[in-house]
């Protein structure tokens, strides 16, 4: 009885476990990207007050302008300059803005944005800190590429496991379905056993993966690892992840059952 379920449960567990790891990696990358976006800002130097609302309407990725108080610059130079020079500097100091964006931009986004801002009347200089940005962006792209390669590996491993499982099912379940057919069991009855096994195995494997990740989540070990890179990621989002894992598991199992049934059905076609 256990052997009947075990091979599919192990295959599904492997697929679901790696998928959940992929979900965590994706979430981590999203959080990392969000952190980069929140921390990134460019500086715009303008000859006077800018109509920031107008600029935000024209350039969609600009989220907000934050005016930099000139007093901070003056405070820093207070000891190096005399009072008169400071007065002259204060009168001629341009207006500084920090510009925050709604996305973490690509280098191309950044170039385009710089060009667009430089065309705005009153803006005299735009500093994007592109060198630092490029390095961080490449790291992000590397993470995303690794994640995509991992996803492809999951697909490959899943496909191989499902194909292997189909062969096992052909051997294990077709024999039972054939014996049932010898005694006149209609297709629905022969298939019912198969669907029952498929749904039970999908449920069991999902529960095992859910419990595994809840334990990992509660254990704190993974959280410590993530805190080392200043990322607080949800290892397991109970409702969303359970639903995803259960759905994927059921889809794979039902696919297996349907292929097995269709192959078995051909036997009786006149």
């Amino acid at each position, binding site marked *: 009885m256990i052997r009947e379920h075990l091979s599919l449960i192990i295959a599904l567990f492997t697929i679901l476990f790696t998928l959940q790891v992929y979900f965590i990696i994706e979430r981590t990358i999203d959080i990392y990207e969000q952190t980069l976006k929140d921390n990134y800002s460019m500086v715009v130097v303008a000859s006077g007050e800018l109509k920031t609302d107008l600029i935000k309407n024209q350039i969609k990725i600009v989220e907000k302008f934050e005016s930099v108080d000139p007093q901070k610059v003056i405070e820093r130079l207070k000891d190096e300059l005399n009072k008169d020079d400071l007065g002259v500097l204060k009168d001629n100091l341009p207006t500084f803005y920090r510009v925050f964006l709604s996305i973490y931009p690509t280098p191309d986004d950044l170039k385009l944005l710089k060009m667009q801002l430089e065309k705005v009347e009153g803006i005299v200089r735009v500093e994007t800190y592109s060198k630092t940005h490029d390095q961080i962006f490449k790291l992000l792209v590397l993470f995303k590429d690794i994640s995509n390669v991992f996803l492809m590996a999951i697909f490959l491993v899943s496909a191989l496991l499902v194909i292997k499982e189909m062969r096992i099912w052909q051997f294990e379940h077709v024999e*039972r379905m054939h*014996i049932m057919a010898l*005694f*006149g069991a209609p297709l629905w009855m022969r298939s019912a056993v198969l669907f029952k096994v498929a749904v039970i195995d999908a449920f069991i494997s999902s529960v095992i993966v859910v419990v595994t990740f809840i334990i990992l989540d509660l254990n704190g070990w993974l959280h410590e690892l993530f805190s080392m890179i200043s990322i607080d990621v949800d290892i397991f989002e109970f409702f969303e992840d359970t639903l995803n894992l259960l759905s994927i598991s059921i889809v794979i199992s039902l696919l297996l059952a349907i292929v097995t049934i269709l192959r078995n*059905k051909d036997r009786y*076609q006149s």
Partner: protein
Amino acid sequence: MSEDQIVISAKNMSLSYIETEPIIKNATFQVHKGEFVFITGPSGSGKSTLLKSLYGEIKPKSGELSITNTPLNNITESILMTLRKHIGIVFQDYKLIKEWTIEKNVMLPLLIAGYSRRVCEAQVDKLLTHVDLLHRKGRYPIELSGGEQQRVAMARALAHNPTMILADEPTGNLDKYSSEVIWHLLKGANEQLKTTIVVVTHDIPAYNIKHTHYTLHNGTVMGGDDRFYNGRK
């Protein structure tokens, strides 16, 4: 004999697996209700192929074959399944469902027929008592000896009180006691319930069974006219 008494009717039937020389050539024979038929022949003569055609596993390449007036030549799956509900089959390799208990295996034809669980359980207990395996009903086939497994297969074949039982070398691998149980049950079903029995075997058993004997030689079905009793006319 009237048409409704004919259980098997073959007219110039040929059987083959691939488009080569047929295994069974132009077979013409009839089996009537309540008849006990032995089909013998050397290995590879087509005995099992002929039996397979009788439960629709192989369809005739040419000629006609009907079981209880249902033509099998172009039978649909649903009609074939309905027909099989009235047939019990016993195989040399038992064909028990290994992941089901003995009780559930015997119950299979009854579940297919749609009987309630209570009726099924009562009937299974009765049959397992007949084959002396009631104490093993919770076991799985792998836990039983070959002889015991065949007795379970026999109980399964009888469970739904079929019109006809087809048996392929039912005692081929069995000990003397299990063989006797099988022949006793087949004879009992034939004499008491008028069940038509078709048995494919190498040798006709030395057992008191009134029967019709067909032989297969080079794909040709011969005999069938004479009634024998205990191996003699």
